[in-house]
């Protein structure tokens, strides 16, 4: 393993706020062992949870307003409350950490797994306890070898100290934890595709209902939760729902790991209060645009979110506020478009990804996205026609939510539909000039 993150990845000392998720993470991302983790209060959340009833843990998480950090923002406690809890509920019940992180432009879960793996393990034991799960899987994307290594070390240490295994810390609760390395493909991150992948099948999505909470992995009750979501859980239990809510600037509670990539001065990740403005993240933390390039737009939270532009810089980054201006916070890791990068080329790159990753199940997705990719490529090559823009807009509607089996296609057209709106002139120039104006002729 060669160079890894150096100083610039995280602007560590933002002295004005409380660090929750990243407080233990070291600049060189060296392993934070059990001892070090315990010294800052590690596994206290679990100890406290074991003294509560599972329902009390669910209630506390519900009250905290924790929303899923995988992109959709579904209320976490509410999801847990759908799991059958009666004595004759089907067994084993499963908890799955979604560590697939394949959304282009997203790099936050890797930090949490490499930088503080025990935090995820503890979060999983607490979440497992809340739904009385018997087995927990961590589904890690296949290229995250270092995350795998760190988590395997942490899991081994946790078993040794009986934070995992039979009768955890003398309680009647037992949990096994297993690492699964993915074979690749974006669809593995979609929660039902993920369950098929864990069952050793192709990662096609499943029909809902039944929902995984009732009938998921191997037909048993299952919760799938993002790495960042789970990493918050021990802190909520330990410090309470009110404390968690007090961390944020807005209705959506907690802190958030925000990221910026693209031509900014200091690309990186920062843990900040939920609801920090886009402007603060971009200009203060990421240091603004590199010299000689100007800001044109951004995808607020990964490849499958709608573009925002200059007018939106004062929007607060949370699930609710970003939705009000027609996009989504998604994963909270923003990708910046600058004036020396072609917006059509950028959207072509995105649609190439989505067309490639489509599982081929539904027509709007596989045919629509591959057509879109070709049309965008033609535009870039100077062979686009005015009618193509109408057809691209049609595909955006064709792939709208409700028309496809899973959320890949609706997500795929978000950057496309918004680019057609905000960068229309740039599309038109490709047609009238019969070339990409950004390419050296």
């Amino acid at each position, binding site marked *: 393993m*060669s*160079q*890894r993150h150096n100083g610039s990845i995280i602007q560590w000392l933002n002295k004005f706020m409380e660090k929750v998720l990243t407080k233990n993470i070291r600049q060189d991302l060296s392993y934070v062992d059990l001892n070090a983790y315990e010294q800052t209060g590690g596994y206290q959340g679990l100890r406290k949870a074991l003294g509560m009833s599972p329902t009390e843990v669910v209630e506390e998480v519900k009250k905290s307003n924790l929303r899923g950090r995988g992109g959709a923002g579904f209320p976490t406690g509410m999801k847990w409350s759908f799991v059958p809890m009666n004595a004759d509920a089907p067994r084993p019940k499963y908890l799955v950490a979604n560590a697939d*992180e394949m959304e282009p432009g997203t790099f936050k879960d890797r930090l949490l797994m490499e930088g503080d793996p025990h935090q995820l393990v503890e979060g999983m034991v607490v979440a497992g306890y809340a739904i009385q799960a018997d087995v927990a899987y961590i589904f890690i994307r*296949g290229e995250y070898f270092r995350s795998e290594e760190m988590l395997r070390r942490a899991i081994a240490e946790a078993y040794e100290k009986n934070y995992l295994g039979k009768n955890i810390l003398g309680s009647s609760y037992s949990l096994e934890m*297993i690492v699964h390395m993915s*074979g690749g493909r974006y669809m593995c991150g979609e929660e039902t595709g993920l369950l098929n992948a864990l069952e050793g099948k192709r990662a096609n999505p499943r029909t809902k209902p039944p929902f995984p909470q009732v009938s998921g992995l191997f037909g048993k009750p299952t919760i799938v939760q993002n790495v960042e979501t789970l990493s918050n859980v021990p802190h909520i239990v330990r410090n309470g729902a009110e404390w968690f809510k007090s961390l944020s600037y807005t209705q959506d509670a907690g802190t958030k790991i925000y990221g910026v990539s693209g031509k900014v001065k200091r690309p990186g990740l920062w843990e900040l209060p939920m609801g920090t403005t886009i402007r603060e993240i971009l200009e203060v933390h990421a240091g603004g645009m590199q010299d000689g390039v100007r800001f044109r737009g951004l995808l607020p939270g990964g490849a499958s979110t709608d573009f925002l532009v200059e007018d939106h810089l004062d929007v607060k980054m949370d699930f609710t506020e970003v939705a009000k201006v027609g996009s989504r916070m998604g994963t909270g890791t923003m990708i*910046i478009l600058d004036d020396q990068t072609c917006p059509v080329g950028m959207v072509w*790159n995105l649609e190439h990804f989505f067309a490639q990753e489509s599982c081929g199940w539904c027509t709007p997705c596989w045919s629509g996205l591959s057509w879109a990719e070709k049309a965008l490529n033609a535009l870039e090559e100077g062979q686009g026609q005015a009618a193509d823009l109408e057809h691209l807009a049609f595909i955006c509607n064709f792939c709208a939510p409700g028309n496809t089996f899973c959320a890949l296609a609706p997500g795929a057209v978000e950057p496309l539909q918004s680019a057609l709106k905000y960068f229309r002139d740039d599309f038109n120039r490709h047609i009238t000039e019969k070339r990409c104006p950004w390419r050296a002729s």
Partner: protein
Amino acid sequence: MLSPEERREIEAEFAHYPNKQAVSIDAMRIVQKHRGWVSDECLKDIAELLEMSADELDGVATFYNLIFRRPVGRHVVMVCDSVSCWIMGYDRLRRELTSRLGIQMGETTADGRFTLLPIVCLGACDHAPTIMVDADLHHDVDPQKLDGVLEKYK
């Protein structure tokens, strides 16, 4: 024929899942770790061990881009072609790589040293452009740095 070690590693995975088929991806990854790729013969052996048909297992294998069903070089160079790397110079990096190695994406050098493949976002977008060689992530890879990186893999 699977080696005793491969067999042992695969069988150890059985304990982690309620049925054998669920081990299919882990099993193929294990074989690939030892051999670089999953040949037809290995696929048949794995299928037998998992009590599946070879066709069924191949249907799983072909879905996953990290399971190689064709031989690869001693080192696999995966170049991130996703959006942040594209913005930060993917095209130039790809051109450098293909011209230095004298192969196109998807090909293997004549000496069997490198296979070049595209890959999606490697989760290091703040240090774009990125490549992964075998299990090693390399970031901020500009053409000047490339020689030093490739040099490490013989």
